[in-house]
């Protein structure tokens, strides 16, 4: 224990580790700021940063693994009594795992602290911290193993960026197979996975985290146990060898159980209604037309009373899940109130929006409500991704340019300060530069003139037959 604490104290002074904490936290913050602040949501962003922190841990651990060689104390260590020499490596590994858990806690905590400071509410999922921390510990274990076993700076340096990058490339292989047919069951076995779809109401779809934590725990156990075994064997320390073998056996058992469980998990889950769920195990399961038919049969998500944080703005009421907070409800109501005001008289629009889970819905509206699927985008943008017109326009991909130009016009009218960003391209337009030009050309006209123009072409817009070129400034 004393040796472990000593190593831990040295690791706590590692500039690589601290530099990594600063860099990874700084790299995560743009993502944190890009979404609506929610603790139950940004915990996933913090979790994702573990992939890059893994590289930092591998570098710091590789440096530790090379220490005896670097400092020229290798001959000294090799002539110490066997048991003492065999204790050094397990102590360093234990310190490494503890330092990984602590350093990732700093990153995870910083992301959540920023979220909370921005007004985020909800409860973060502690399993995401544990999963990320174990990934970092795995990177540390592999880095230390490479440093200790190969004694090569070259291998240690190249391994650090390769670990996360190779994980990502393997993910793309797993998903490209899944999309083209053959079953690939090892997608969830990768150390870092693409996070499953998440809903504050339905949870993760599918929920793999408990099994994945066990799987990562098994990998960490196997890596650390393996290194300890080699060290004990080199030193001829039988007791340490026995303990290492027991640790390895535990790792194999845990890995077998958790990997079998993970491989049985579906690759995706689609929820069509409270009682209708479909799991996707293979690419062939994903028959878009059949699933759309099923969605139409099931119909819109019923009002289950869970969207109970409401706000009313200019007669438009929005109800969202409590995890999104009252500010979100208020902001969304404000955006829809803008849309309702500019579109008044053109058609019969709903005067209420209700949040529904991020599910597979054929209809975005009921007869009197707009169904606002949960999404963590800022309502300033999201309310225009799901505009009021969606309730009255026929579902078709034809004439999308003209429809998006009308959405852009509504957005530019509601947010005149964003017009310059849209025009310059600093803000991504809703449907490309041509659509942005047409929307901004409409916004440059008096509002009543635009309403008169829209009233004239409304039937065509509704059917989807209006071309973008028919609108002012709309050259396709």
């Amino acid at each position: 224990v004393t040796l472990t604490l000593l190593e831990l104290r040295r690791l706590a002074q590692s500039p690589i580790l601290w530099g990594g904490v600063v860099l990874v936290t700084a790299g995560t913050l743009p993502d944190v700021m890009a979404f609506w602040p929610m603790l139950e949501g940004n915990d996933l962003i913090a979790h994702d940063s573990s992939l890059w922190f893994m590289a930092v841990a591998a570098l710091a651990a590789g440096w530790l693994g090379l220490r005896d060689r670097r400092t020229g104390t290798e001959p000294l260590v090799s002539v110490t009594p066997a048991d003492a020499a065999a204790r050094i490596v397990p102590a360093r590994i234990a310190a490494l795992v503890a330092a990984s858990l602590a350093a990732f806690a700093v990153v995870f905590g910083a992301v959540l602290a920023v979220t909370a400071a921005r007004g985020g509410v909800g409860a973060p999922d502690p399993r995401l911290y544990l999963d990320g921390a174990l990934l970092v510990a795995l990177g540390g274990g592999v880095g230390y193993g490479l440093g200790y076993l190969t004694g090569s700076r070259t291998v240690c340096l190249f391994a650090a960026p390769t670990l996360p990058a190779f994980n990502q490339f393997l993910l793309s292989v797993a998903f490209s197979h899944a999309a083209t047919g053959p079953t690939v069951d090892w997608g969830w076995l990768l150390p870092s996975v693409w996070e499953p779809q998440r809903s504050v109401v339905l949870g993760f779809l599918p929920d793999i985290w408990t099994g994945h934590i066990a799987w990562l725990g098994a990998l960490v156990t196997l890596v650390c146990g393996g290194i300890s075994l080699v060290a004990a064997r080199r030193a001829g320390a039988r007791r340490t060898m026995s303990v290492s073998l027991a640790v390895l056996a535990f790792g194999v058992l845990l890995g077998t159980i958790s990997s079998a469980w993970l491989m049985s998990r579906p690759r995706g889950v689609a929820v069509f209604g409270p009682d209708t769920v479909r799991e996707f195990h293979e690419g062939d399961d994903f028959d878009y037309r059949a699933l759309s038919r099923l969605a139409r049969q099931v119909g819109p998500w019923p009002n289950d009373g869970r969207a109970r944080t409401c706000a009313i703005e200019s007669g438009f009421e929005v109800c969202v899940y409590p995890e999104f907070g009252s500010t979100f409800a208020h902001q969304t109501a404000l955006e829809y109130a803008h849309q309702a005001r500019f579109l008044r008289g053109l058609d019969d629009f709903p005067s209420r929006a209700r949040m529904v889970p991020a599910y597979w819905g054929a209809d975005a509206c009921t007869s009197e409500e707009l169904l606002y699927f949960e999404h963590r985008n800022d309502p300033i943008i999201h309310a225009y991704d799901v505009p009021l017109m969606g309730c009255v326009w026929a579902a078709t991909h034809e004439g999308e340019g003209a429809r998006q130009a009308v959405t852009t016009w509504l957005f530019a009218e509601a947010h005149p300060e964003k017009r310059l960003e849209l025009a310059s391209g600093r803000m991504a337009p809703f449907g490309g530069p041509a659509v942005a030009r047409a929307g901004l050309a409409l916004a440059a006209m008096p509002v009543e003139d635009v309403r008169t123009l829209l009233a004239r072409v409304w039937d065509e817009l509704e059917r989807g037959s209006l071309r973008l070129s028919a609108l002012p400034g709309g050259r396709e």
Partner: protein
Amino acid sequence: MTLMGYRLRPLPRAALVGLTLALLVVAWWLAPHLGAIGAARFMQFASVLLGLGAGFTVSRDIDPEPVLASAPHPYWRTPAVRAALWLLGSGAVIVLIGAIIGARVVRPLPVDHMTELAIANLVFVAGLVFLSSLPWGSLLGGAVALGGIGACAILQRLWAYWPLRVIDDADASRVEHPRVWLWGTGAACLVAGLLYLRGRGLRLGHLLTSRKPSRSRAI
């Protein structure tokens, strides 16, 4: 040739050759599964990894001081030759990776453009790691260079006009001629490193050293 052989002798050749071979094999295996973005990312990653290899052409890890203390000091020409050879070899590997990806992808990709960007990345990363390996050695210098690349990636997300775009996202970029920036910065770092070496010899890591080796004793 004999002199060249001596100059290249201390390099970790097995690891460096192994790395390039591994990259070629992985490119062959991954190419059919990569889309346009995946292929571009893979080439950028390969260029970063190969660029890091330049850290092993110069540092006290490669040319240990106890050995050099009693031997003629290799001057700036030795690391210059090594770095030039490494850049040429790595550039060839990137062209080869581009050719493999171009031949094995399902849909045609702008491989020439991706290769051009990857080579600019290679020069930038190689320059960065060459310079950072001088005071800190290959591993720590490589870590510093990786940190620099990470910082560039963060800055390019925050500011569309940030010129050094290692993981280039063409849609978000507002920079004209990003390749020129990468080439220029990389070359400037390499030249700065060589000038430093020319002034001090290969007594790396000892920035406070005052002894300047004799030019006549250089290899």
